[in-house]
């Protein structure tokens, strides 16, 4: 613009403009600097727990063991830090009865049950959310032609997206943990029950704090994200595909099944990974419905035992270790380590989603 010979030469306003734009830029970079600071601190402090200098460079013990209580004590003038099992073995070996030790809960061992629990929570809830979300999106973008019901559905989805996560937690507690019916051979007098015949009753006693409760609660939370992502990829499929298929005499479902879904599905799945990041990162809904402070890794056999058990979850574990135990050199290890593992997991998921989405957009271009 400076080269324009007709331009009004007002260096003053240009200076102001440059200054203001500089401020805008400073603000933008301040945000990025904050993000970098958060990442760097957690990587720096947690790196020592999760990684190591010698091969295999990753501290597998931290990733593969259960959390244990840490015992810190003086023995023969040497300061010892031992986990629960080691401590007991040590006492037995030396024949010592009472050792005065400082104890720090959760500070020894690793976080394997938490990783496992988070994995199961994400898999289950995303299965439910994808099923519901993809079929809702198919209805909204393929079948519906406006109207009151569709308006209402869209309004509900929009509002569902704005409900605070803790309210989802309360809802899950009220519905799944305390109300959902359980099939049993006896009529529980303390709760309402419904006879279903053959000597069985449906007792409305709730499922309790378990995987299933967590799945449904988290699935409802992820639903708006999944629907939005699925609708976007359905809309990206050109109209001609459907019309050509219909013109050849296919029914609407045949057109959708053969000419829309195959092209939209990859996009739906990759965009829905963002929903995974949201589900995996939430603590508040899980803490009432599925998570325990301490639980052994999935020992129950049988499907119903499996989904009926509570689990440990990474986000809840971070909450527990950052609020319920003191902060010092002994507890720092597990605090930063867990935070780092969780951050890598969630940001890895999010990055994958973003990268895959850009690639997908490039691949399908009609």
């Amino acid at each position, binding site marked *: 613009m400076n080269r324009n010979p007709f331009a009004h030469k007002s260096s003053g*306003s240009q200076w102001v403009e440059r200054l203001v734009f500089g401020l805008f830029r400073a603000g933008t970079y301040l945000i990025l600097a904050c*993000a970098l600071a958060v990442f760097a601190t957690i990587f720096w402090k947690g790196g020592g727990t999760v990684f190591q200098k010698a091969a295999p460079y990753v501290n597998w013990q931290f990733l593969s063991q259960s959390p244990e209580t840490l015992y810190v004590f003086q023995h023969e003038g040497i300061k010892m830090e031992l986990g629960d099992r080691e401590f007991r073995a040590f006492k037995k070996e030396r024949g010592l009865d009472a050792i005065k030790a400082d104890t720090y809960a959760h500070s020894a061992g690793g976080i394997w049950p938490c990783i496992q629990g988070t994995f199961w929570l994400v898999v289950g809830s995303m299965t439910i959310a994808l099923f519901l979300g993809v079929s809702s999106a198919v209805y909204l973008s393929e079948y519906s032609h406006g109207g009151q019901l569709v308006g209402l559905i869209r309004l509900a989805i*929009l509002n569902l997206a704005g409900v*605070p996560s803790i309210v989802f937690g309360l*809802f899950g507690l*009220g519905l799944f943990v305390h109300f959902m019916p359980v099939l049993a051979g006896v009529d529980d007098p*303390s709760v309402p029950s419904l006879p279903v015949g053959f000597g069985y009753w449906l007792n409305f006693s709730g499922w309790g704090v378990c995987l299933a409760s967590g799945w449904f609660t988290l699935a409802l939370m992820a639903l708006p994200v999944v629907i939005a992502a699925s609708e976007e990829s359905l809309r990206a499929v050109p109209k001609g595909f459907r019309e050509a298929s219909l013109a050849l005499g296919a029914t609407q479902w045949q057109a959708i099944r053969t000419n829309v879904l195959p092209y939209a599905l990859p996009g739906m799945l990759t965009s829905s990974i963002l929903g995974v990041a949201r589900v995996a990162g939430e603590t508040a809904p899980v803490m009432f419905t599925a998570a325990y402070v301490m639980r052994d890794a999935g020992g129950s056999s049988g499907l119903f035992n499996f989904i009926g058990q509570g689990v440990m979850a990474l986000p809840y574990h971070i909450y527990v270790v950052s609020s319920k135990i003191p902060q010092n050199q002994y507890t*720092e290890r597990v*605090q930063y380590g867990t935070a780092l593992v969780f951050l890598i997991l969630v940001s890895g998921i999010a990055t994958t989603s973003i990268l895959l989405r850009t690639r997908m957009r490039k691949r399908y271009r009609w």
Partner: protein
Amino acid sequence: MPDSQSTPAPERSVALAIRKEKRFRPLGLTADSAIRRFFQGNAAFAILALVLIMVFLLREGAGFFGQNSRGIRVYRLAGLEYVDIIKGQLDRHAELTRAANALRLKIYSDALAKGAAPQAATAALAGFDAFAEALGDASEDVRSLASDLTEQAAAVKQREQIYQDSIEQKAMLIRAGKAGAAAAVSSVAVDFGREIKALSASLPIYKDANRLFAKKLNASLAMAGPQSVPAAWTPQLSGLKAAAERYAATFPEVEAELAAWRYDAPVPWYRSVTAFLFGRQWLTASFWQDWYGIIPLFIGSLLVSLIALLIAVPLGVVAAIYVSEVAGTGEKTWIKPAIEFIAAIPSVVLGFFGVAILGQSLRAVSETTWLAWVPGFPMSERLNAFTAGCLLAFMAIPTIFSLAEDALTNVPRHFKEASFALGATRLQTILRVLVPASLSGLISAILLGFGRVIGETMVVLLCAGNRIAIPDFTQGLGAFFQPVHTMTGIIAQEMGEVVPGSIHYRALFMVGIVLFLLALGINYVAQRVVQRYRISIG
């Protein structure tokens, strides 16, 4: 006609096709429309989910008002309210004493600052100390009476509690079919009338004690002459004395209130609702009386959100303007995903960051001398509303940024071109054309950011300090640096410890309902704003 014979054939085939289709209609549906229904049903699940959330929040929370109402009735019946009238009088006296002590501290430190030796400063205040001590001790008779009455009333309330428990136990036994065991459970109803007589019989004793109180108070005030403090502090002293005199003047009112108090006066039905919505105390598991007032939590939530928005709105909007209007394409391609990536950081990790690092560092910053002019500095607590607000701002920035950026890019190109054609600079175009044109989009971005912030749980639970009290707004901006508790935080913190079905459990659900309605309201307003925006550009 020759070809009239060929016409019936297609008709028959059509009829056949229709009949064939009719055959495959189990519920009056063809396969295709059944599939359609299936998808429709799944889509309608979103509505069902929203309805279920409302229903189950209400189902668990609705019982709260009944239970709270009973609690308030027992509070009156057992005479706790009566004792609280006297306690209120004593609390105001304690406030006076605190004011006197604060004044003494000020005078003392002022004297030290002026170079007086500590002993000399203390000696100079001997007169004031005698006054303050006499002022503090003036209430001792009333105080001892109040503590006697407290015990009495608490005992009555406890007996009532035992009675209620026994009734419940009986009902449970009868439901389980154990009528014999139910009859064996002893339950004695509390005769409130008789119990209260013992309580209200203390009124003459109280009146005597109160007269003594007033006398001692006046005597103490007489001790505080102009010579008891340095001349510069006389106005403050007389202010204190005036407050004490005003306080003493309220004694007859307290007596009248006590005399007029009736244990069997009905508690109005709305009392339970107003006690929740406007109650200034959230007090649980107390031996005396539990109060479930949402105001301290609500104000805590608002304060934290306000701090977060004060930081996040300028930064988010500025970044949106920068990325959409100023930055080059190279910068744009990486800044935008980078900021959106922040949204993926789990809130609990940010909360941990606040506990482990940010709280400490902010306090260290607040202790530097050249920042001493900031109200509220140095921070007394590591975890406070400001710490939580900073982290929440960080969480809200991606939301505000991407919505604001959308709003800015949605402004039609010709708006910008027209502005340039008229000779406006880029800055003028941005500030006078683009921002006003996208204003409603920006407002809705801010509203949705607010919705995100007020519903956030883990950060405030870990970093807001969790003190259930209304911040002291007399300190001005210093209130930003006080620990608060929030609506989301209290649910997360206390839900794990309460008995399902208890009043505390239901109170937490009521807080959840308030949050839910708030979120719906924010969403609604944001949508309305966006709708307006469409019309204005159109």
